[in-house]
Structure formats: C-alpha cells, structure tokens
C-alpha cells in the first residue's frame, strides 16, 4: 500500500475527528440551530479565492456586500488551496476548531455530514433558485440538504476542429467504438515511428476523474444509493479502464502525452486531436492561444457510450455544526449561494455557475465550454456518494495507474480498488 501525505493525514485525522467532535469542549452543540441574532465574528475556510484575483474579489466585493446586509457580522477568512483543504479541515476538526463556514468539494458532504460536523440547512434553500437536480445531489446526505452549490467544474471532451477536417471526420464520436476508431485515424507518428500526435489524450486531467467520467458514460455507478455497496467493479467499471489500455495499445494515446494544470495543453500544442478537459480550458485558451478560439479551431462535446455523461466537480458552501454564531454563519452560506456571489466567482475561475438562473448571463453566453456544460447539466454525474469517500478518493488514481502503466490488467486494478473501498466502508 502506498502512503501519501494525504492518506496518512486522512487516516490519522478521521480517527481523531470522532473524538474531537465528541469530546472537545469547544465543539459546542453538534447540531446548533441557526436561530438567534445574525451577529458575531465568524471564520470562513475557502479553497476558492486563494488566487490573487480571488482575494480581490472576496475581500473587495463580496464580503463588503455581505457586511452591508449584515453589519453586525465580521468574517475572518482563512485561505487555502484544494491540495491542502483536507488537511486544514482534518486538523481543525481534530482540534475542535472547525471554521464556521467551509467550502468543500463535490463528494465531500457525506463524509463530513456523517461525522456530524456539518449542520443541515433549511430545505427551502434548495428551491430559492433554479437548480438542476444533479447539481443538488452532492449537497445532500441522508435526505437532508447540507450545502449550497457555488461553482462547478465539469469534465468534457475537447477537440481540434481543424485536425478533424484534415482527417475528413465530420462529427465527434457518438460512442467508444467511434472514439477508438477516430483516435487511430487522428494519431500521427514521425518517420521513426514515434508518436508525434495522439488521437485522444485522456491523461491530461486527473486519472480518477477521467475514469469516473468514462464509468458514468458506460452507465455505471460508484456506489449504491446507501453508499454502503461498491458498484464500480462490474463490467462497466472494468470496460471504462480497459478503454484507456486499448487506446494505448492502438498507439493512438500515450501516458506520456499529458500536460499539467496551467501548462499549454496537448490540444493547444497540436499534440492531441481530442482531449479530456476541464471546462476552465476556455479561459486558458483565451489567455495562451486566443487564435485557436478566434479561428474556431476548438470544439467540445459530452462523452457518450451507453449514455452521455459529464463528471461534475465543484465547490459547495456549508455551515459547521459547532458554530457559536450559527445564524451569522448561515447568513454567509445563503449569501455565497446567491447568483450575485456565484457569477463573479465562476468568472474568475472559468467555472460553471451552480444555478441555472445565470444561463443567460454574458459570461455564460461568451464561454463556449461553460455554456455547453450548463446546457447539459442533466447529464452531469458526481463523484462520492459514500461516507468513506475521503479515504477512497486518495486510492483511486494510484490503483488505476498500475493498470495504465501495464503492471496489472484493468480487472485486477478495479478488483483491488473495490477491495480497498470495501475495507474503508467497513470501517465507518
């Protein structure tokens, strides 16, 4: 078993969380209600505004607007990155100092709601604005609403229209058989037989999220509705991973053809003809390769096999169950969940707004990938769905990677992952 910084901390932390939430003198009422005056100093832990422009937006625009509506509330912000968010929450919980308001990723609600560290929100908040059902799903646990969606990040397939035209391909693939065939046609090698362009690059996004997108497009599931049973270890999960091995075998994909976040992507460089992407790629293209957008050389589509599916990640805002200023914390959660807060937040990150009400905004209309995602939210699927998710998510990439680099078959890797997941669930 591989030990990473996160897995060690998660293992240590989640063990300590139960003790901290149960024993700490400062954790207060574990289900503090949000009645009472909207006042006091509250803390906000956020991985969403950590960049320089994000800080300007939060402190220069959003929090002053919140203060105007709630003059007796002071918000102290604790900025972090997504990479260190789990550690921040884990140590805060273990120390009995959970922030009053916390922004969490999709899939994170069940583990923390299960530990009773988040407070349920009034269900009518789910009807304030136009939400797609799929978007609210990851905000719920055990039938209760625990968070409001802010921004979403979807995984879509982007492609080079000019390379498609060059190969005489008229429309994007409708299923994996077509995807595989087109990848072969679009791949190019140099005179020595070395790949110079892959037909399909599934590896430039996180392998966990990529495989999940393929699993969902194959009509598969990660877990059952109760979050107690592993469901991904059937044929649909194995086929999803097998496809990566098949395109490598076809010499139309290569694990070394990938780009890190923020680097010019293989698609921009013309080193791939199709690529799994985050919708934020649009903003990156505008900055780094505006000519590709201007000349309409890049398109996007939703991955499909048995069903069309798009992985939906994103950030939600929730209230701590131990907040001493529950009403103030809830006011901030509600404020952050309004379209007025969501729109500039989505804009500064190139993300998809969490409410459908913003579909007609200029931002959405002028961002092709965000528009595609928002128009197809009914096809969105979320990761997570079990209270053991924080432990399981750390193991997915490393386990799947063993198959991608040829150390195991797809079935062996999926079986191994299923066993690890079952163990994690059994420890709940």
């Amino acid at each position, binding site marked *: 078993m591989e*030990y990473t*910084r996160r897995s*060690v*901390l998660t293992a*240590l*932390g989640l063990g*300590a969380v139960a003790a901290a939430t149960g024993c700490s*003198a*400062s954790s207060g009422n574990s289900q503090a209600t949000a009645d009472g005056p909207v006042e006091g100093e509250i*803390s906000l832990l956020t*991985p969403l505004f*950590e*960049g*320089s422009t*994000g*800080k300007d937006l939060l402190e220069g625009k959003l929090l002053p607007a919140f203060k105007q509506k709630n003059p007796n509330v002071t918000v*102290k*912000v*604790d*900025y*972090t*990155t*997504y990479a*260190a968010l789990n*550690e*921040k929450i*884990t*140590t805060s919980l*273990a*120390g*009995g*100092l959970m922030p009053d308001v916390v922004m969490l990723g999709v899939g994170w609600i069940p583990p923390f709601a299960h530990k009773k560290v988040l407070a349920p929100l009034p269900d009518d908040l789910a009807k304030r604005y136009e939400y797609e059902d799929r978007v609210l799903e990851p905000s719920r646990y055990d039938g209760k609403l625990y968070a409001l969606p802010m921004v979403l*990040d979807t995984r879509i397939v982007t492609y080079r229209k000019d390379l498609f035209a060059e190969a005489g391909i008229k429309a994007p693939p409708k299923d994996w058989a077509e995807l595989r065939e087109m990848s072969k046609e679009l791949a190019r090698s140099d005179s020595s037989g070395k790949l110079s362009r892959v037909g399909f690059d599934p590896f430039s996004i996180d392998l966990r999220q990529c495989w999940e997108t393929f699993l969902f497009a194959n009509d598969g599931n990660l877990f059952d509705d109760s979050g107690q049973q592993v469901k991904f270890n059937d044929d649909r999960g194995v086929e999803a991973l097998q496809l990566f091995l098949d395109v490598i075998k076809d010499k139309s994909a290569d694990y070394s053809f990938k780009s890190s*976040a*923020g*680097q*010019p992507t293989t698609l*921009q*460089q*013309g080193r791939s003809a199709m690529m799994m992407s*985050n919708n*934020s790629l649009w*903003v*990156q293209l505008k*900055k*780094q*390769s505006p000519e590709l957008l201007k000349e309409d050389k890049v398109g996007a589509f939703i991955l499909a096999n048995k069903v069309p599916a798009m992985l939906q990640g994103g950030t939600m805002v929730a209230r701590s169950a131990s907040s001493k200023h529950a009403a103030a914390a809830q006011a901030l959660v509600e404020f952050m969940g309004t379209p007025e807060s969501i729109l500039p937040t989505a804009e500064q*990150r*190139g*993300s998809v707004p969490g409410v459908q009400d913003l579909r007609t905004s200029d931002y959405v209309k002028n961002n092709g990938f965000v528009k595609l995602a928002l128009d197809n939210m009914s096809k969105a699927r979320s990761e997570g769905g079990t209270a053991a998710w924080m432990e399981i998510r750390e193991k997915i990439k490393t386990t799947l990677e063993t198959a991608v680099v040829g150390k195991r078959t797809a079935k062996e890797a999926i079986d191994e992952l299923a066993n690890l997941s079952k163990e994690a669930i059994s420890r709940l």
Partner: protein
Amino acid sequence: MPPVETSARFRTGRIVLYLTLTAISLVMIVPFVWMLLTSVKTPGDIAAVPPRLFPTEWAFGNYADALRAAPFATYARNSFVIAASHTVLNVLIASMAGYALARLRFRGSSLIFLAFVGALMIPTYTKILPEFLIVRFMPLFGGNDITGQGGTGWLDTWWALIIPGAVSPFSVFLFRQFYLDLPVELEEAARLDGLSELGIYARIMTPLVKPAFITVALLTFEGSWNNFLWPLLVTKSDSLRVIQVGLSVFRTENDTQWAFLMAGTTLATVPMVVLFLIGQRYFVQGFATAGIK
C-alpha cells in the same frame, strides 16, 4: 611506468572528470535558467509551440506585478524570522544535546541517543496531527485554561510557527557524530585547567566542529524557508503567512500564472542561493565528514 605515460593518463582522467562535471552542472542549472527565463516571458511565449528558450518580448514587469499581487514583503519577513529563529535555536540546543550525548557520561545516555535515532525514523506527516493538537491545546495560551481548553492555544501565533520545528533529531545526531571524533586529551586538559563543562563545550570543542554548525545552520534555514504545510495549517491571518504559502496565490485549481509564479519563486530562491554561496565550503566539508563516519 614512465612518468610521461602517467602524466598523460592523469591529464585524460582530468579531462573526462571535468567534462562529466560540466555535463552534470548543466543538468543541475537548467531548471534554474528555465525558471529565470520563464519569469520574464509573456503568456503567449510561455504557451509557444514548440517551446522557446528565450522570450520574444522581455516582460520584466512580471516581477513588479507578482510583488503587487500579494504582500510579499510581509511574507518574506515572516519566513526570515521563522528561518532565522529555527536556525539559532537548532544550532544552539542541538549542539548542546549532541555534545552531551558524545562527551558526557551519564545514566541513560545510550537510551536517549537511541530515542533520537528512533525519532529520525518517524515520517514527518504522521507527526503533523499530534503536533497540531499540542499547539492547539497549549495551556494558558490563546485563551486556554490550565487544561488547554477554551481558547486556541498557540494557533495563529508566532509560537506555533517557531517552537514545534525548532530542534531536529537529525541535527542532534549530526553534532554528536562530530563531537565524538574530537580527541579526549583536549577535553581533559581543559578540565585540569579548571574550565567548566559549559566552557569546554563553548570555548574548546565547539570551535573545532565549525563545519557541523554551518551544515546544520544551512539545512535548518533552507528547510524552514521552504516549509509550506505547517505554516498553512497553524495560521489563518495573512500577516502570519510565509513566502511559500504566498506563492500559492499564483497557482489555483483551474489556472497557474506561470510567469508570476516563476518571478516569485526566483525571488524566494535568492536568499538560499546567497547563503549557499557564502557557506558552501563548510557545507560540503560537513557532509563529507558526516559521510565518513
């Protein structure tokens, strides 16, 4: 063997050696050159296909823009205060501990030394949570009562940034090895002359292990200057954040501002490079000596 042949063989050996060292130096320096050049590139140059080594347009303004993006003067000051404090405390306390373990005979010294060696084997990340809890429940600080409840302890204070990482078992081990190697006659002569134990440590033995001090000082300063996770976990206020945390403003989940990140990283690397240039002779000597043991 004739002297001419020996000399020719020697010369060939030197040429091969220098060529190898030059190649290794180039490999080592390329990331730094790439960082420097990227720090003065425009986004277009950074995204160029194929990648260009030199920018088409030199964007020196990236440095000013990067410095404006966050309070880097505060972050640099904080990093310096923490790194300097760690260095002074580590050098002072670890050298005393190393001296005691090497030169003084007392009951349980072997056991204590074994405990230090054992501590070397504990992975850093397994210590974070227990250390965090000690800091958070520190009695009589940050509103805590005598049992450590009611407040926030050392969290979001200089104490949390400085005390937990101040002394490392590795430094104690390194100092012990150096002190162990000094001739016992020196110590005995000083004792006969009536010098106190503290005097023997400070005036006789310590001047002879200067490389150990430079090595520990440089390693401690470098480790503290580059620390990211611990300062992020124990602080909330921007006024207590350090340079490595500050640099993360250029790298978000969906975007990386490479030019600014590289400009900030260049500035953050400068103190380390200067320190190494000043102390490199002793630093290499320190490692060589420690390696021989």
